[in-house]
């Protein structure tokens, strides 16, 4: 008599899943986690991603003064001097400075002090065995420097030690305060989300995004449906031509596709020339007016997406039993009636599927917009994903705000997640999940 659970992890299954899981965890899951983490930081170009170091700078001292740090401490921190002592000579030796040069420094400059680097360096240059390279001279000079100013410390501990060494009897908490302020890396914050909510821009971009998704989606579904149905009725040579033509945008590399649209809508482009010949307003349609820019954006994306609908709808059409169509023709149904009463009812699920699938991919798409209108004119055609991308990775001023960008991406992730779950419910995901039938 034995008892056993019918479902056991299959070793082969685990082995088969491992590569996929590794890749998905690495490049999907981990990035999502990192994005969620970054969303709560003020990470930017200036703070760096990998963490910062501790450095006291002139500007920092100025802002510390504003914060009310006492003048004496500030002054002590600001001072930078060069003292030629035994410790300095030792330091120079470990830094690899030429031994002869060190000896000369020790002999000739011992116990002298300088207040500026240039003065000290000028003095060093007079020594007979001074190094030929400027850098070696600077290295030698820096060994004698007595300052925390502009020195980068990797850890807080080192910074505090250096501060304590520099400052005699610092006021209570001053060392900690300075060390905290001197950190150059990122810190935790929820400001990103707060700022997004406050910024009036946010809502305009949300509006743009909704507008873009809804219209493009409508174009995709309607045109996809239209194409599927018409090519279904056309003789095969004609339908073949049109389906190839409409599939082209999908397989054309996006860079080329974008520039083809430029050629089509640009100043001196195709439409421009025709419009001019016809006496119609001719301008750069891609960027010349808000309405035409939106039209272009929606067409550019719509033409790519329509083929997706077309493929799925065509498949669904072919699955309709031909007898039903014949029967309806015998009954005298007109083409329109046939579409309305026989074909469309069969299309309910494909339409729903295309709609949900495309909503998600449109929400996160920005490549085409970026390469065509680039969100312009002004920022009238900027959508959420594009703005997130620009904020985080691509802007002219070069100050990439990873934290803010991540927060924007995270919002997109959240919206996508919610929509996906709704869709999974809608498509009765459970029914797609039959259990393995072989139980061993």
């Amino acid at each position, binding site marked *: 008599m034995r008892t056993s659970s019918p*479902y056991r*992890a*299959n070793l*082969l299954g685990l082995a*088969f*899943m491992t*590569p*996929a*899981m590794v*890749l*998905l965890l*690495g*490049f*999907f899951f981990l*990035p999502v986690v*990192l*994005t969620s983490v*970054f969303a709560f930081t003020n990470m930017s170009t200036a703070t760096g*991603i990998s963490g910062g170091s501790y450095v006291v700078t002139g500007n920092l001292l100025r802002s510390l003064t504003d914060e009310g740090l006492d003048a004496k401490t500030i002054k002590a921190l600001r001072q930078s001097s060069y003292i030629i002592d035994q410790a300095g000579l030792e330091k120079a030796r470990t830094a690899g400075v030429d031994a002869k040069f060190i000896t000369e420094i020790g002999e000739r400059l011992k116990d002298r002090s300088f207040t500026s680097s240039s003065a000290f360096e000028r003095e060093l240059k007079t020594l007979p065995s001074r190094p030929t390279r400027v850098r070696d001279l600077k290295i030698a000079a820096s060994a004698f420097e007595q300052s925390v100013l502009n020195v980068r410390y990797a850890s807080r501990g080192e910074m505090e030690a250096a501060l304590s060494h520099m400052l005699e009897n610092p006021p209570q908490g001053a060392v900690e305060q300075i060390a905290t302020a001197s950190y150059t890396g990122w810190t935790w914050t929820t400001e990103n989300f707060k700022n997004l909510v406050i910024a009036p821009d946010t809502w305009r971009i949300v509006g743009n995004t909704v507008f873009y998704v809804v219209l493009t989606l409508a174009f995709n579904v309607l045109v996809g449906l*239209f194409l599927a149905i018409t090519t279904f*009725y*056309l003789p095969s040579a004609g339908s073949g031509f*049109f389906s190839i*033509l*409409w*599939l082209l945008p999908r*397989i*054309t*590399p*996006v860079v*080329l596709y974008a*520039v083809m649209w430029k*050629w089509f809508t640009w100043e*001196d482009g*195709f439409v421009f020339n025709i419009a001019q010949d016809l006496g119609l307003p001719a301008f750069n349609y891609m960027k010349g007016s808000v309405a035409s820019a939106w039209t272009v954006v929606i*067409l550019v994306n719509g*033409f790519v997406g329509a083929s997706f609908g077309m*493929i*799925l709808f065509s*498949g669904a059409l072919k699955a309709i039993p031909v007898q039903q*169509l014949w029967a309806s023709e015998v009954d005298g*149904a007109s083409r*329109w009636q046939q579409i309305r009463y026989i074909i469309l009812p069969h299309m309910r*699920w494909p339409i729903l*599927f295309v709609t*949900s*699938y495309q909503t*998600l991919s449109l929400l996160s798409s*920005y*490549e085409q917009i970026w390469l065509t209108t680039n969100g312009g004119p002004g920022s009238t055609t900027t959508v959420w994903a594009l703005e997130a991308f620009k904020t*985080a*990775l691509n802007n002219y001023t070069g100050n990439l705000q990873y934290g803010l960008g*991540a927060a924007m*991406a995270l919002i997109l992730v959240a919206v*996508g997640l919610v929509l*996906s*779950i709704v869709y999974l419910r809608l498509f009765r995901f459970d*029914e797609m999940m039959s259990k*393995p039938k*072989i139980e061993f």
Partner: protein
Amino acid sequence: MTRNFAAWPIILLLTVLSLPLFVMYLFLLVDTFSNTAPGSLLPNEFTLEHWRFLIDPTITGDVWKPTLTTFLFASSMMVIVVSVSATAGYALSRLALPFRRFVLSGIMVMHAFPSVTLIIGVFLVLQFAGLYNSLTGVILVKASLMLPFGIWIMKGFYDAVPWEIEMAGVQDGASRFTVWRRIILPQVKPGLLSLALFAFIDGWSEYMLPRILAPSSDFEVLSMYLNTVSDPNSSTYNFNIFKSVGLFYTLPVLALFVLFQNRLMNIFGGGTKG
């Protein structure tokens, strides 16, 4: 089946709707072989000069190295996507796994995910792995981004293979691996082929990922190359040359597409139910 209705209004509407595409692709082809006087629509001379970039690297820079890189990129990514999807799709379709439901719905969600917006996260992962600015890194990322799609498609194809064939294999004494390898895999060949085509075309066209994750000129792919050529600020800027480069870039994809059109149309042959 065109008895109860006249076909021409539909064809007319279809033609009008398709006109922009038709014009764009027609001129893409025509312009590469001809010159057109400024302000005019129709070309006035036939020429091959726009194709000289193929042999003369001084025009737009060497085109063959990016072509090779692109091929390397697209084909390695294709191999990864197809092999990983072929195994994972089978496991999810047929094998008992812990958290199978969860994994499957997770993949379903990722399938339609704003993956590219996570690029900073991806960058960090690559950096940790020491793969930033390397072709390997971009290939892995691109392949991973395509995996949910691939796994889902392959699962669909596997689902369509009758269980009995698999059971028969097991009864015949073959291990599950042998069954997969010798019996099931041949059944999903059409799926593998469509996925391979899709992956290759997708990899061939990829622009964003190489640009961001491997900006070094050593790994320049054709999309980046084309983008440089298309930069109106460059002194070599010439629209017809750009179109020639663009056509050259698209030709392999077009060829695959024409050859395997039906396969591509059948990518959802395994059934995206609903």
